């Protein structure tokens, strides 16, 4: 028990004269944030989160709190793929509280997470939006170290994401996968695929034409793809075998969304090494 991490991270961004700056950055091991950088224009601040212990074990708790003040814009990613190791039963937890003030926009684009067999993991993301704030986030998960022939046959993975604005829920996504051969193979569950991905945009209406052009992107890939509109936004889901395939598709979707909402192309973080 004593060797468990209780990591914390508090990040706050503000917009000053059109530039987005980090105005607060407090962290507790194993979480750390690299110095902010600006590979595109100065209005969008890029940050990279590091998990210095290499992975999460049962009993670990990570709490992240991110706030964007009015009209600030940030892109946050992670330095490496995340790992959640097998556990003897203790649950690992990660919670994220995100508050986006009026007119701000956060692009939350972490690299994929590998969930080892026997891992017990619970993630909760709560996002509070103010007027005209926009949330864009994805999550790519590989169940089991499939390259070694490992499947997610025992353990459990939970990922709950909720986006609220002024007391109304805009999107609630409660995913739960119990490590079990039946659900891994079932066409209703993973359908024999080790990789899933979800990409969401919440806070703005997505019109039919934009939805249609995103649907049209899927034709030349192998996995299962789906795109649907939310009450105010859009979600894309992937189920397949390849993290690079889902990432390619998500980047293509991100490009269309960026052109539509920010009128500029995407800027792929260098840490992704693609």
């Amino acid at each position, binding site marked *: 028990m004593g060797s468990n991490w209780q990591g914390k991270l508090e990040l706050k961004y503000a917009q000053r004269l059109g530039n987005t700056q980090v105005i607060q950055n407090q962290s507790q091991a194993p979480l750390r944030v690299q110095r902010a950088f600006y590979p595109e224009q100065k209005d969008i601040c890029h940050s990279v989160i590091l998990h210095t212990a290499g992975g999460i074990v049962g009993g670990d708790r990570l709490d992240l709190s991110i706030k964007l003040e009015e009209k600030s814009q940030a892109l946050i990613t992670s330095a490496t793929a995340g790992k959640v190791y097998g556990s003897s039963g203790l649950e690992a937890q990660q919670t994220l509280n995100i508050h986006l003030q009026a007119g701000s926009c956060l692009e939350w684009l972490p690299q994929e997470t590998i969930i080892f067999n026997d891992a017990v993991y619970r993630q909760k993301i709560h996002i509070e939006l103010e007027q005209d704030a926009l949330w864009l986030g994805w999550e790519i998960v590989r169940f089991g170290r499939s390259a070694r022939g490992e499947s997610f046959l025992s353990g459990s993975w939970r990922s709950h994401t909720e986006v609220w604005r002024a007391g109304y*829920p*805009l*999107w*609630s996504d409660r995913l739960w996968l119990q490590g079990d051969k039946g659900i891994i193979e079932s066409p*209703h569950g993973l359908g024999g695929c080790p990789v899933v991905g979800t990409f969401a945009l919440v806070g703005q209406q997505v019109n039919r034409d934009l939805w249609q052009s995103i649907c049209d992107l899927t034709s030349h890939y192998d996995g299962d*793809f789906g795109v*649907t*509109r939310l*009450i105010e936004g859009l979600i894309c889901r992937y189920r397949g075998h390849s993290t690079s395939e889902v990432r390619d598709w998500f980047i293509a979707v991100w490009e269309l969304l960026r052109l539509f909402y920010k009128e500029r192309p995407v800027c792929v973080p260098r840490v992704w090494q693609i």
Partner: protein
Amino acid sequence: MEAAVLVRAYNAIDPINFEPDLETLKYWNNWFSASRETSELRASSWQMGTSLSKLLMDIAPLEFEQIFQHLYKNSYPVGVCNLAIAFGVAAAVWKIDKNILVAAYLQTWAANLVGAGVKLVPLGQTSGQRIIFKLNDQIQKTAIEALNLADEQLESCNWGLAIASMQHEQLYSRLFRS
């Protein structure tokens, strides 16, 4: 998850004086809208729920008018009621036993799916009936689970359904929807 929300709507009506807890009904109505996997599943829940609630207000305005007008006014977007909410409210107001209600709701869903199967795939009427009959135990089991879920346990693993429904939305002609 839908049956568990049905239970929450049912429980929001006081069993003794039938006073509705409007805040709770509003919460679950909006939460359910936000948690639908796809826009077509959301639209079908809204369409059936809004039709049912209008019918209920028509049949028994004294019992239902206040409840559904409140839900319409406080829903996002304005003017919608989900099927599980309208169904749960009706059953509570009309004193239908909760255990029977949940099993019946699940049975209706199963019968609907099998009915669609009979029309779409090579599946005979009697084979369809046999499938529904065989689901009996599973429905009873699922009903008990749905009755006992905590809020935190409203979660699921249904990538298959979600992606199939998303792909269905892109079809030129869609079945069972005029």
